[in-house]
């Protein structure tokens, strides 16, 4: 490709950052040994056809980590090294929230103002931070700034803040629960604080009945030797002994259904990819960005070896060449622990019979959790979902058959192989098998991740978490996530299973259970959800790109009591906006962008009067 560049040159540190990922350029722009293994464990073998464009996102991360923003010169240099047109690289860089294309302060606090944190004082936190650090988005000249952020996946410790710092040794810390003072201190001292303990996110920790969460919080979770002596790698060894066909049969028999939201039978995917020929891939979807969801983070932080072991099994059973773990950019601790676990297993020679495993970091885009958007993101393109069909099992990453599974789905594989698929299927209900993780946050006494066999009702889950907190009087529960639905206090006896949720017009989604007490302004919650989808729409298709904006404006008009024409007219318009998004959008984001709002308007008397 004959590329054209502006005259802007990179600085020495920008060159250093790019070279750290790509190796020094040995000719004018090409080649070089790759040296830095920390910015994404990346490698180039296996997909020569795709060129080196798949290294674009890791390179952008490296630049951003080093200098805190992406300058023209830096982008030019990255493009020359990777042979990517600068206009396209600009399109990619501007897709992600965590990248700044203008000079930005080296230390940035991302303050969550999403729904779970709102219920726990995010509003006051933002006001407090504004007082000590100035207005959001400002701070061009100062050392630190702050921005508002959608859910950071730390809802059980709300209100949550993620501080990221660039420099020679970039770092990121989670502060949760946060106060204006702790945030300001972390920013101005530019020093990494210890992240909260993952054990505190699992109130059931230590209970004998736990399967998926059994090891979370045990002090030895970070050592391969301890993992082994605690029964780790048993499932991997079984897989090696019994062979791929046996593994896939067990998964099929288990009736395991994906835990990432789309509820697809896992065995069917494994079978399809195993049967495909030629190069193929495994992708572990760890982009967890659905508001109210933090179970995958807890698994990766609390038992990283188990997740990697499951990926090894998946690669072995499907005969895949390479596996990727796509971790959301806002999860520094999960990324670090997964990286360490992979490195340990690799140096013990255990990946040889599986395949190389690479970590890729997202950079702040909810849509990249959608499987085909995720493929585009890894490949170095904008994270825009692809039209389906073709499905990933036929044409996924790099156009090859790909097995993509959620972190929790994979974690179940170890149990399935150890107990046998049939025994696993016997747990839970007939159509929802196995143990299940639920994310409880908002107004519950003991927020956290809970594990129970499928079948528990919404009420039982709330009680498990100590009941409704705040005023103690329940107004509504959001189930499934922002793409899920609200239930009223009279619907709590619905079992939180695939079939049970369907019966009340909801979905399991990412197993969010977020109660709101009666002091909460539900209209404000709906507006925040609408804002979330407006911000996170990839912008590709018209129904979602414009529909999410129109939905938000409409709710704003209804809330402020300034409808255009009659209320009836506005409600009809809202229904039509909702329908076109559901019917005509490309992907699940658009399809579900109105579900929570619709479900709330159906159940609660909000926005029924012209003035509030």
């Amino acid at each position, binding site marked *: 490709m004959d590329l054209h560049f*502006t005259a802007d040159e990179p600085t020495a540190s920008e060159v250093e950052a790019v070279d750290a990922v790509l190796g020094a350029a040995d000719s004018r722009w090409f080649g070089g040994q790759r040296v830095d293994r920390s910015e994404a464990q990346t490698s180039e073998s296996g997909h020569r056809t795709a060129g080196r464009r798949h290294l674009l996102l890791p390179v952008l991360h490296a630049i951003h980590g080093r200098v805190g923003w992406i300058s*023209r010169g830096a982008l030019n240099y990255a493009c020359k090294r990777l042979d990517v047109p600068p*206009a396209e690289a600009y399109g990619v860089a501007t897709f992600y929230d965590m990248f700044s294309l203008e000079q930005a302060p080296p230390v940035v606090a991302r303050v969550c103002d999403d729904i779970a944190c709102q219920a726990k004082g995010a509003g006051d936190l933002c006001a407090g931070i504004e007082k000590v650090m100035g207005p959001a988005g400002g701070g061009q000249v100062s050392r630190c700034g702050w921005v508002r952020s959608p859910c950071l996946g730390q809802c059980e410790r709300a209100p949550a803040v993620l501080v990221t710092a660039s420099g020679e040794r970039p770092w990121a810390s989670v502060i949760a629960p946060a106060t204006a003072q702790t945030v300001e201190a972390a920013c101005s001292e530019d020093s990494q604080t210890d992240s909260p303990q993952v054990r505190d996110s699992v109130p059931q920790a230590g209970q004998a009945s736990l399967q998926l969460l059994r090891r979370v919080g045990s002090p030895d979770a970070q050592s391969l030797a301890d993992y082994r002596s605690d029964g780790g790698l048993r499932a991997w060894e079984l897989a090696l002994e019994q062979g791929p066909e046996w593994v896939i049969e067990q998964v099929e028999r288990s009736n395991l259904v994906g835990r990432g939201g789309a509820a697809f039978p896992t065995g069917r995917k494994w079978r399809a990819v195993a049967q495909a020929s030629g190069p193929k891939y495994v992708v572990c979807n760890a982009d967890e960005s659905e508001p109210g969801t933090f179970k995958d983070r807890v698994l990766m932080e609390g038992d990283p070896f188990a997740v990697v072991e499951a990926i090894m099994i998946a690669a072995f059973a499907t005969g895949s060449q390479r596996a990727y773990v796509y971790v959301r950019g806002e999860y520094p601790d999960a990324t670090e622990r997964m990286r360490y676990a992979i490195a340990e297993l690799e140096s013990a020679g255990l990946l040889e019979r599986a395949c190389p495993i690479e970590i890729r970091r997202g950079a702040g*885009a909810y849509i990249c959790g959608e499987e085909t958007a995720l493929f585009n993101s890894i490949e170095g393109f904008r994270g825009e979902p692809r039209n389906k069909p073709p499905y990933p099992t036929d044409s996924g990453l790099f156009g090859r058959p790909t097995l993509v599974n959620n972190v929790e789905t994979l974690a179940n594989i170890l149990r399935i192989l150890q107990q046998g698929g049939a025994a696993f299927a016997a747990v839970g209900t007939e159509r929802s098998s196995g143990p299940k993780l639920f994310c409880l946050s908002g107004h519950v006494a003991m927020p956290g991740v809970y594990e129970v066999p499928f079948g528990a009702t919404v009420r039982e889950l709330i009680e498990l978490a100590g009941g409704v907190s705040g005023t103690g009087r329940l107004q509504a529960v959001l189930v499934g996530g922002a793409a899920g639905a609200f239930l009223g206090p009279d619907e709590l006896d619905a079992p939180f299973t695939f079939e049970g949720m369907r019966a009340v017009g909801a979905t399991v989604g990412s197993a969010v259970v977020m109660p709101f007490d009666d002091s909460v302004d539900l209209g404000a919650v709906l507006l925040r959800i609408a804002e979330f989808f407006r911000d996170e729409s990839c*912008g*590709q298709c018209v*129904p979602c790109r*414009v529909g999410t904006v129109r939905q938000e404006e409409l709710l704003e008009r209804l809330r402020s009591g300034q409808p255009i024409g009659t209320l009836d007219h506005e409600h009809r318009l809202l229904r039509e906006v909702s329908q076109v998004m559901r019917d005509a959008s490309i992907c699940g984001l658009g399809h579900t962008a109105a579900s929570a709002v619709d479900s709330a308007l159906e159940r609660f008397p909000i926005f029924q009067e012209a003035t509030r």
Partner: protein
Amino acid sequence: MSDQSLADAPDLTVPVPPGPVPSAPVRERRPEVELSVDGQLVSVPEGSTLLDACRQCEIDTPTLCYVETLTPVNVCRVCVVELEGSRTLVPACSRKAEPGMEIRTDTERVRLSRRMVLEFLASSTDVTQSPELCGYMESYGADPERYGERDAQAESKTQPVKVDNELYVRDYAKCVLCYKCVEACGEDAQNTFAIAVAGRGFDAHIATEFDVSLPESACVYCGNCIGVCPTGALVFKAEHDLRERGEWDASRQESTDTICPYCGVGCTLSVQTQDNQIVKVTSPLDQEVTSGNLCIKGRFGWQFTTGPSETSDDVAADGE
């Protein structure tokens, strides 16, 4: 010596040896796929889209982001149809026909989605120079006024026209983000990759890197992006200037097809003139040589017909 070699030379009039005249291999007939469209059974060659099937049934199906010469991106969703068994509607322009499919194109659901898509576009974009889109809005009864102040929220609408060279201007307030120009500039035609989609969601827009001006960018002024733009967001500077002065008058215009004089490729040009002045040059999309694409010379190299110009040379040199 020379005589000798002449005598040895083969006789140029030797007749072609008799024998079988090679004929083109018989083209294998593509197997047909049978499906029903609005209750009517149709048979289309394998690999055809639902749009092909609709067209075969002479069902008028609106399209905006689709054009025969580019890979379908299926982003506008104005072509959606109902497919039996599918939870959502499907885009006719890119969904492949499969045996036994049952398609419906004129249901309440389809009409609502098409109308909403058109309303959404017209409420956030200046569509006045897209007769096609305005026509669809008529037939689907789209009413963009329902969303209030037309440009209250639409940043895209309020941005100024980008006039940064003498050949063509970019008025992204008219852009519906159909991705056609990006495809034409990139993989599907020009392979220059001067423009791409940047930003996300409602802020998504067509841009060069860091929004630099065209002369600073990789643009080679082939104008292939202009050729595919459905909304008048990309127009010849000549057209833009005439419109600015209120002198653009379609009724005074003629289009003449000719062959580009510059090189041996022989691209077909459709030269549009107003009052005997060239205002626009395109090439027919269904033209075998060009598929609608031209280079800077054929597209813009007609200044000589109107006398010397001080500026066009610089820009052309820059683009080379």
